[in-house]
């Protein structure tokens, strides 16, 4: 099996699906000739031509609005938003239109598309090239939200997202675009949506995370293991609809929870997960669930490594929660 990084695996998935299905088109800023600012769409313009890999004007609203129209027609557009931070000019189309099309038309119309966008910190991008806006989409009924953490999942989840009947936001953790490497099967396979993955089994405590922070959670869990604490680490993979069963099963076993995410704490997905755990398995909780997250400030430049919930901040949370 070939070794790939995340960028290559996503590129591979796009190429595969574009060959398989001529309804798939890519559009966005700089996605064509130059293959995207992170080179995720590299080579696709050459293979599929400018009608299927489309450089657009600088307008996220236009990209998503037009993509919704294309999808109503029956194409499967995969618009790219250059950075998740720049998705907001298209927010109205996403939350008012894309999310509600099937519902508001009584099932007559479906706007099936996959919005790909790099998210998260770790590339010294400051306020506007680092954000993780997942909860701003999860709160809106009708959207699926996916976030892969390794090349295998990236390819399989993207293929599953493209073939899923609902609109999907596919957030790509850019901090690990090149750093996360692994074996990726050639050819077709999917990783099912809404199934979390237990990336490290453990019995003392459950760490729930996604995206680039999974590696930090694992790092912290390994350090905790040296202290005799066996943390189970859950990679959500699909953020919404969330795999509640895997979470509940783990928490019932461990009774202790740490949720880790890059986004600011308040009204992030972490709070939602804790509320759900309260609803589902309150009596199993042996310690207060804890969050290790980005702070409730804009994303800083110089101090980004202090802002991010890296292993050095996760470890104390694990230790304290285990000892509670």
């Amino acid at each position, binding site marked *: 099996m070939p070794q790939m990084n995340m960028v290559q695996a996503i590129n591979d998935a796009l190429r595969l699906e574009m060959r398989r299905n001529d309804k798939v*088109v890519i559009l966005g800023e700089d996605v064509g000739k130059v293959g995207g600012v992170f080179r995720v769409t590299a080579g696709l313009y050459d293979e599929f031509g400018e*009608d*299927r890999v*489309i450089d*657009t*004007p600088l*307008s996220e*609203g*236009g990209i*998503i*609005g*037009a*993509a*919704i*129209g*294309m*999808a*109503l*027609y*029956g*194409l499967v*557009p995969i618009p790219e938003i250059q950075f998740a931070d720049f998705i907001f*000019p298209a927010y*109205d*189309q996403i939350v*008012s*239109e894309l999310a*509600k*099309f*099937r*519902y*508001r*038309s*009584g*099932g*007559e*119309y*479906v706007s099936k598309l996959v919005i790909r966008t790099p998210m998260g910190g770790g590339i010294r991008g400051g306020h506007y090239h680092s954000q993780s806006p997942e909860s701003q989409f999860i709160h809106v*009924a*009708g959207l*699926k939200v996916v976030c892969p953490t390794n090349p295998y999942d990236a390819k399989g989840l993207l293929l599953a997202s493209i073939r*899923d*009947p*609902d609109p999907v936001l596919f957030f790509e953790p850019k901090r690990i675009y090149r750093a996360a490497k692994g074996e990726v099967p050639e050819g077709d396979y999917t990783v099912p949506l*809404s199934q979390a993955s237990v990336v490290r089994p453990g019995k003392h405590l459950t760490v729930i995370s996604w995206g680039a922070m999974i590696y930090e959670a694992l790092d912290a869990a390994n350090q905790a293991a040296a202290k005799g604490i066996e943390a189970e680490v859950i990679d959500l993979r699909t953020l919404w*609809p*969330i795999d*509640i069963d895997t979470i509940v099963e783990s928490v019932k076993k461990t009774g202790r929870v740490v949720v880790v995410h890059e986004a600011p704490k308040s009204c992030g997905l972490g709070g939602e997960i804790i509320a759900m755990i309260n609803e589902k398995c309150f009596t199993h909780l042996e310690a207060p669930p804890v969050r290790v997250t980005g702070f409730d400030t804009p994303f800083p430049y110089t101090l980004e490594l202090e802002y991010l919930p890296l292993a050095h901040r996760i470890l104390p949370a694990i230790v304290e929660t285990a000892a509670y």
Partner: protein
Amino acid sequence: MSNSVLLGIGETKTMSATPTTTSHAAAESGARKGEPPQVSFDVFRVLRDDGTLDPATDPKLADEHVVDLYRSMVRTRVIDERLVVLQRQGRIGFHIGSLGEEATIIGSAAAARPQDWIFPCYREFGALLLRGMPLQRYVDNMFGNANDPVRGRQMPDHYTGRQYKFGSVSSPIGTQITQAVGFAWAAKMKKDDLATLTYFGEGATSSNEFHCGMNFAAVFKAPTIFLCRNNGWAISVPASKQSASDTFAEKAIAYGMRGVRCDGNDLFAVYATVRDAIARAAAGEGPTLVELLTYRLSGHSTSDDPKAYRKEQEVEGWKLKDPVVRMRAYLQKKGLWSEQKQAQVEEETDAALKACVKAAEETPAPSLESMFDDVFAEMPWHLREQRDELLKGPRAKGHH
């Protein structure tokens, strides 16, 4: 927009944006990408004040066809008036109609070919009925009952009609515009011969969506016809405060798009303009922005009282240009219409509507369960849970 003269007082000057070009991608020489955009500030007219057609512009529709379209206009108006009454009686919650704008809607929808798709704003129920949607389904939508095509999920007049190649109404202003562009562009990619028509008010030209949609359509030559119903008002804001440009048609220049102005209260003019624009789009000549000069004779919706912000005098002026009255005068002059026919279509419409209303009122509300369908293709666990919890709990007071 300046407010100077009554619509129809002869306007003659035209303008086409044909500047020479200075560019800067110096090394890439080459000719202009296409024809220069043409924008006409003439108001295109067919139906003259004396009730005859201008032979130079007459689209030459068969008399029967014209009579049919007039019937549609009358039906639209009768339905409009009756729905306002139903709203006043508290039997429906809301109505937003097209009083005074019937020619813009019927004329344009009639000009569309069967394969063309309509992306509506919210005043276009006349177009939906023209496309074949049964009146009953429209009325069910007004009542939000179990037979409502949108399953009682949206406000009245938020209809949908996929099988009639008619989009899904939503409230946010302008969102249909970019969607219409994407749809047409996709069809063009697939070499399918269809155009999209999208309706919006002159107020919507200020929206983000207008800008994005116009730009993408022009850059990618998407076969979309942008139908700007300039009805003078965006709720209480006059067209003159919406933009400092002299016309809405000239906004096309900014995008290198063709733009035209048309007497929106002249069914023949609307028909000819839209038919021509579709033909151009189909021939690969790109999109057109059509400014349809018309007037909203009623309030913005049943929630609005226009007396608070505009003068009766202005309304009276526009009543003289009422598109239904003008058409009727034309048909009568040609011997194609009569008092009796008029009474007949009004009565028939009224009767049909009454029957539909009765049926709609007798139809139950959508089921509780249906509230959780169609959020996703398959219902996820959290919605199943929420549904089951609701079903086992007590009902709201005043539950339908």
